[in-house]
């Protein structure tokens, strides 16, 4: 911990390497990744598959261990950060446990982390209204639509007081109309909770619409090719996507993706 304080970066990677040893030889999932994320930022990672964006998120979560370089989360190692409940993780699929109700699923991290029972109901209610799922607590996951399930999984990641939200293509499996709606809600939620969000996506409009910082990555080896600080205001109605400013950022992201892609 030591020198870390509120003004230090929340996530800081320096020359991060991760090599998987496979039967076909080593695979460089990440090579020389440098990045720092400030508190309250909304950072998107975008790139083709195999560019290491999910791997990088998993490193931050302590689910993968880098083979080189330094990575700190809240000034701690990712493992320590995980143990101090620094982040909530939202996966590609909602991954709700089918034998638990929606409220039961949201309660799961509270039970595991040992929050006092008396707090459970109140916390569950609070995050369910944050994601607009009030009244669905007693339903089982299969009774909800895909979009609602994903919102429940976001609520589950918010139920404990982590100030980082790691999201791995959370809306990738949803149709565009639902996705637009959830993107809007997510921005609202981010504004209200002031969390730091790291968001993996393969959709350019999604990345540009949501982020204050867009990290463009490319594969073989997985590396960062461009980091774009978004000039868009924090307040973003859906039709901001038709403005010239938005299109300019989207263009730059597209250029970055094209540059990094070797078309082999």
């Amino acid at each position: 911990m030591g020198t870390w304080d509120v003004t230090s970066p929340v996530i800081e990677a320096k020359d991060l390497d991760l090599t998987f040893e496979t039967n076909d030889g080593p695979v460089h999932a990440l090579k020389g990744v440098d990045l720092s994320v400030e508190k309250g930022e909304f950072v998107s990672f975008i790139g083709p598959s195999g560019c290491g964006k999910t791997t990088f998120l998993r490193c931050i979560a302590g689910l993968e261990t880098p083979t080189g370089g330094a990575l700190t989360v809240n000034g701690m190692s990712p493992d320590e950060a995980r143990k101090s409940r620094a982040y909530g993780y939202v996966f590609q699929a909602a991954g709700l446990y089918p034998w638990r109700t929606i409220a039961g699923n949201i309660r799961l991290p509270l039970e595991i982390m040992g929050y006092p029972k008396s707090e459970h109901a109140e916390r569950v209610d609070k995050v369910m209204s944050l994601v607009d799922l009030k009244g669905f607590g007693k339903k089982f996951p299969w009774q909800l639509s895909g979009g609602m399930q994903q919102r429940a999984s976001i609520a589950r990641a918010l139920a404990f007081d982590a100030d980082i939200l790691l999201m791995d293509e959370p809306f990738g499996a949803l149709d565009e109309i639902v996705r637009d709606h959830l993107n809007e809600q997510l921005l609202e939620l981010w504004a209200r909770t002031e969390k730091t969000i790291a968001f993996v996506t393969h959709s350019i409009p999604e990345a540009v619409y949501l982020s204050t910082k867009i990290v463009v990555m490319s594969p073989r080896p997985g590396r960062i090719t461009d980091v774009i600080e978004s000039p868009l205001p924090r307040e973003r109605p859906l039709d901001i996507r038709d403005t010239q400013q938005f299109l300019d950022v989207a263009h730059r992201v597209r250029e970055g993706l094209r540059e990094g892609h070797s078309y082999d």
Partner: protein
Amino acid sequence: MRNIVPILVVVAAIVVVWYGAAVKMNAQWALDQAARAEVELSFGELVTDTLSQERPRLPAPHQVVAELWDSTVGKSITSKRSLVFHGWITLSSTLLGFVFGTGLGILLAIGIVHSRAMDMGVMPWAIASQTIPILAIAPMIIVVLNSLGVTGIIPKAIISAYLSFFPVVVGMVKGLRSPAPMDLDLMHTYSASRGQIFWKLRMPASMPYLFASLKVGIAAALVGTIVGELPTGAIRGLGARMLSGSYYGQTVQIWSALFAAAILAAILVGTIGIIQRRALKRMGMAT
């Protein structure tokens, strides 16, 4: 109700074939008897005779049903000739063995899933145990335990457990390993302990597999108890009833004991089916 029709058709076909076979198989004896008495049998008399012999080679369905009725409803349940009495003896040992076997199976599965050494060490033995013919090992278990002074339903229950633990081990290992990598990753992001992962993820996820195994296991447990009653001179239980029937050529008795065992098995498997449906429905995992 629509699926009752095919079932009835199949049952009717079986009954017809059965009657035909009974006439054919019992005809020789009827003809021999008639020849000895120097009378000619008309076809009608022949059929009537083949379906009402006291010790037929193959009893007719209605004879078995009559014997079943007579030895369940017609006898006091404490009578040695009551199938309810014998059925209860078999049932109690079956249930005891089933509980032993299920408990052992679940414990072994938990060990196998959590310890690589047990995975490598136990599974081959569990498989090997099932390749030994139960008919060969059952008398040995009974004799060895008898010489140690263990008698009654325990030795039979051990044979039941021996047969019923296996499907539970196999099913539970699969069930406890059924959570997807993402489900496990979620637990890791919470820094959950192995115990928490077990109780909150692996155990509930394994329930559908457990019930499927229990259905196989309880049928195997019943077979185990009956096998335990067969070769050991037991005088009580459905197996003993079959054995004494075969000593005295009482084919009707053998068949009725056989049907009693089949009905018992159907009730046991059906009961687990009902519990399964209730439990999984409550867990929101209705199949």
